[in-house]
């Protein structure tokens, strides 16, 4: 995909996630919006996948450890054709294949069940270790939240991934600087995460997490070295691109009205139209 196509894809991911959550008028909007551009970069070319064969052995794996942001992942999967796009409106409804938190046994294309923060770190490392041991050429991608980095298990994994030289692990931190109760710096400051992971022996970068090209470039750069795990800290904004969530203090989990949804959806439509005009 071109940069413009990736940007349009990211806006469509936001639109689709919001559409899914709008049925119940509530959900984890903040973190889903802040990682939408990452989902676009991954499913727009950086990650090998086959929507018709989600369990394809040659695929790259993705563990979304901040499992509450399932809706952004589901939107990307729906748009790529892993399941019918209209299924997105079943999010969190009885019997759905799209629960609030990611579930590998329910959703086509979801590689790991997550939801208790910190645990996706270890399962992703286990996946990466399994591929390394079996000499598969799959990459394992991992998405952590910055608030999630307050969990001790993240740092157990940070030590262990370096010890095991998991060079085909490419992790991201959605550094939106916020957690449920406010700013991470005010609750339990996680500090300079790029520096911390570098200190733990990882190859570490920090980039604009809303720049799809920068994300793909950072992934390409990470792939140039295979002797240690990779961390890409994504500077993001919680609620990014959603008119009723961006800039709102409490935007981790939001209840919203049909009118708010329609305004947000219309704003994303305008963004897409602008991008399409620029592209032509």
């Amino acid at each position, binding site marked *: 995909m071109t940069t413009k196509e990736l940007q349009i894809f990211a806006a469509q991911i936001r639109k689709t996630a919001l559409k899914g959550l709008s049925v119940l008028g509530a959900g984890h909007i903040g973190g889903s919006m802040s990682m939408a551009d990452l989902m676009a970069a991954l499913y727009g070319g950086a990650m090998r996948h086959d929507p018709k064969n989600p369990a394809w052995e040659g695929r790259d794996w993705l*563990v979304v450890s901040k499992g509450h942001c399932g809706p952004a992942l589901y939107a990307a999967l729906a748009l790529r054709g892993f399941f019918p796009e209209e299924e997105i409106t079943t999010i969190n409804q009885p019997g759905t294949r799209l629960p609030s938190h990611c579930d*590998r*046994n329910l959703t086509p294309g979801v*590689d*790991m*069940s*997550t*939801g*208790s923060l*910190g*645990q996706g*770190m*270890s*399962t*992703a*490392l*286990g*996946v*990466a*270790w*399994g*591929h390394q*041991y*079996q000499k*598969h050429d799959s990459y394992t991608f991992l998405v952590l939240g910055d608030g999630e980095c307050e969990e*001790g*298990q993240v740092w*157990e*994994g940070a*030590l*262990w991934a370096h*010890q*095991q030289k998991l060079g085909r692990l490419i992790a991201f931190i959605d550094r939106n600087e916020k957690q449920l109760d406010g700013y991470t710096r005010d609750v339990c400051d996680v500090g300079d995460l790029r520096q911390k992971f570098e200190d733990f022996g990882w190859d570490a970068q920090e980039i604009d997490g809303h720049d799809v090209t920068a994300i793909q470039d950072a992934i390409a750069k990470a792939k140039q070295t295979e002797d240690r795990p990779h961390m890409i800290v994504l500077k993001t904004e919680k609620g990014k691109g959603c008119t009723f969530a961006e800039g709102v203090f409490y935007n981790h989990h939001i209840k919203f009205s049909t009118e708010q949804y329609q305004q947000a959806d219309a704003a994303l439509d305008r963004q897409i139209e602008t991008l399409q005009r620029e592209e032509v």
Partner: protein
Amino acid sequence: MYQTEKVLAEEAKEMRAVFAEIMEELVQQDRRVVYLDADIINSIGMTAFWKKHPDRTINCGIQEANMIGAAAGMSATGLIPFAHTFGPFATRRVMDQVFLSAAYAKLNVRIIGSDPGVTASTNGGTHMPFEDMGMMRCIPGVTVLEPADSVMLADLLRQTKDLYGVFYIRLSRKKAEKIYTDGSTFSIGKAAKLREGSDVTIFATGISVADSLRAAELLEQDGIHAAVSNLFTIKPIDQDAVAEAARSTGAIVTAENHSILNGLGSAVAEVLAETVCCPLERVGVQDRFGEVGDVNYLKKALHLTAEDIAAAAKRAVARKG
């Protein structure tokens, strides 16, 4: 099929030595088998294995939560992980990781928790799990096993390699008393009956099996004919064996090196309440913490001896209508 020894005697080998032998056998058989530990490889006697198979042995360091999650992730790629640490750290320390990363995710992990209950001995109350089986038992789909001797341990390890799911295997490291003849095999989920009897049935697990056989001898002297059955699968519990024992003997005793809450005694009580009611006496740890001491001292202090089991059997028999 299993056969029992005629006379109780200490085994020639420690349980951990047999554990290491079987792990060696399994890695030779199957390239997918890997072994994880959290810095107590030396304690479980796996140092030689680690040196021989450095690519198959993952010493995670002192980080049990990461070890369980990593084992779950490895299994998602087709590997067959066996993860070991001391019982308290293999269960209560990693309850949420076993729950979500392994069981909820429907992945394929064998967790070995060593030094169950009083066998933690001088490591004391902090390291003395009386709650581990209970915690694992309440996670959906987890199979909970406690081998009584090294013959049973070997068979259960071999079987779990080719089964799918989350298994918790409770393992005493030291020498057990030999219950079964070499080469015996067992059915997971089915009780192994050791002794016939008409007045009361003693269901036992782990180190309490040998004490239950001794208790049956004591009871025989008083004219009470006690059946003894090894309920080594705490989950799924053998409902048929429990109901049949209630019908045929009309009184039941459970004996376990574990809390009477949520372990074997609770599992048997649940079955009795829902099938055939009869008097039940539970021998086990009475809702208290452990302490330091040798195993014989601790068994006496916590009322887990053969005499305690025999006394419980008499109470159960006396309560029969």
